[in-house]
């Protein structure tokens, strides 16, 4: 019996992360990366933002958002190295670096969201 490949699962997670990154990435970057720093609009105050982050649903959602975006990025970057730079002899190392990085990043995200007072 052939061993089941993990590739379909990775592509599924890649797609889920891709959808979330596309739907929400631009507006988060636009507001916190450009609009608030340039003073075009005033940022939400600390108290309000903390109350949003305190909500369990917000934290669960943000964790899924961060983790899926990291897996999406890792998967695509793996293929950037594979197809773009044709680094094909270091597959094991590249995979470990990409997916390992995504797992570590997700753990950091879980920790930071868990610690919200």
């Amino acid at each position: 019996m052939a061993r089941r490949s993990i590739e379909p699962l990775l592509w599924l997670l890649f797609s889920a992360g891709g959808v979330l990154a596309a739907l929400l990435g631009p507006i988060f970057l636009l507001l916190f990366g450009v609009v608030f720093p340039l003073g075009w609009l005033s940022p939400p105050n600390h108290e309000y933002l903390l109350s949003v982050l305190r909500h369990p649903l917000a934290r669960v959602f943000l964790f899924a958002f961060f983790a899926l975006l990291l897996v999406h990025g890792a998967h695509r970057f793996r293929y950037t190295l594979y197809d773009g730079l044709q680094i094909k002899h270091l597959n094991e190392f590249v995979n470990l670096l990409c997916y390992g990085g995504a797992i570590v990043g997700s753990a950091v995200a879980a920790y930071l969201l868990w610690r919200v007072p």
Partner: protein
Amino acid sequence: MRASAGYTEYHPRWLRRRKSTYWWLERVSYLAFILRELSSIFVVWTVAFLLLLVHAVSQGDNAYRHFLSWSGSPLVLLLNLTSLLFVVFHAATWFRLAPQAMVVHVRGRRLPGAWIAVSNYLLWALATALVSWLLLGD
């Protein structure tokens, strides 16, 4: 890739011409492909940036203000502007390709690709409005 059955990456008898490492500079469409692939780096930066924001908000009002002034420094601003361009490029190409990836049948007929693309763009607008309302509504 080694795990998949019946697929070998190196076949000793095939003639394979080595592609230049810079093959993606040969055509505009190749360049667009590699730029889309590079959006992955900026997606990861977006996560890091937002995690720094979450961390700052957890630390208190002072840390949050510090984060806001730090995000206004030229280098961070430039990085975020670049990331915004790449992530928007990712989003636009992602939704444009959605009709090829999603095959939806309604009453035995395949839904036209344009419908799927438009509904994806509408969802994008809705998500954007929702986040704006949540963050700007206080």
